[in-house]
């Protein structure tokens, strides 16, 4: 194999390494199990207003994004949507503790009132 292939082979090796690193997600925060267990609803509301309300509306009333108020979402569903993205919503808008807090807040407003 000629020497001219060397940059391509090394480039492919770097791409494979990048893929492996992406699969590992070494700095990904662990998913907040249950959301409400680790999240703070009050902090979540502040973060929600900053990051989410533009699309989901104040208190999750809906807008460009889907309505969240009294829709019965559970923590796992909300966590998954935040982590993976949904429709036009990008993945990972908030991560780590902020994600847990937002999940806690969204779960709190999405609980149907008695």
């Amino acid at each position, binding site marked *: 194999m000629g020497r001219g292939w060397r940059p391509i082979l*090394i480039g492919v090796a770097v791409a494979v390494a990048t893929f492996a690193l992406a699969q590992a997600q070494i700095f990904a925060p662990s998913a907040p199990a249950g959301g409400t267990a680790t999240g703070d609803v009050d902090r979540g509301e502040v973060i929600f207003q900053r990051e989410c309300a533009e699309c989901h509306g104040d208190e999750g009333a809906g807008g460009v994004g889907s309505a969240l108020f009294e829709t019965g979402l559970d923590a796992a569903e909300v966590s998954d949507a935040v982590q993976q993205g949904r429709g036009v919503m990008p993945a990972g808008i908030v991560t780590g503790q902020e994600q847990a807090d937002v999940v806690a807040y969204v779960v709190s407003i999405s609980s149907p009132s008695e």
Partner: protein
Amino acid sequence: MPLADVAETYTDLVTTVFSSTIAAKAWFATAAVLLALVQVTTAARIYGKLSFLPERGETVARIHRWSGRIAFLCTLPVFFHCVTILGFQTPDARVAIHSLVGTFVYGVFVAKVLIVRDHSLPRWALPTAGLSLASVLVVLWLTSSLWYFTNVRFGF
């Protein structure tokens, strides 16, 4: 520092300037693409394909080198967030294309840098590698920043 805290620290750091990590990525990627266009333009001048730039010499070569270095630096926070926190995802076509092309960006970059330093290769090899790298960056920008600016919001 636990690994999970790295993401939080990164988020705290980025949100001192930008409204969110996604907004930061959108702007860093935009800067990288604009600098990539400077790269293509100055490379074309160096190869004698353009004549509107003021001179064809050391100044153009210096602009080419420094625009490349700064573009590379602009990609680092994007790489950090996309690769080490979000990872390879395929929830829809846009994200799948972005993930797949993004996997190759540093591979193409490394190949291009190696080709720059290897003077035994054919003359077409370097412009091909450079255009490939610029194309990869443009595809990544179209599937991330442009989408963010048009679908989510245009702002910091």
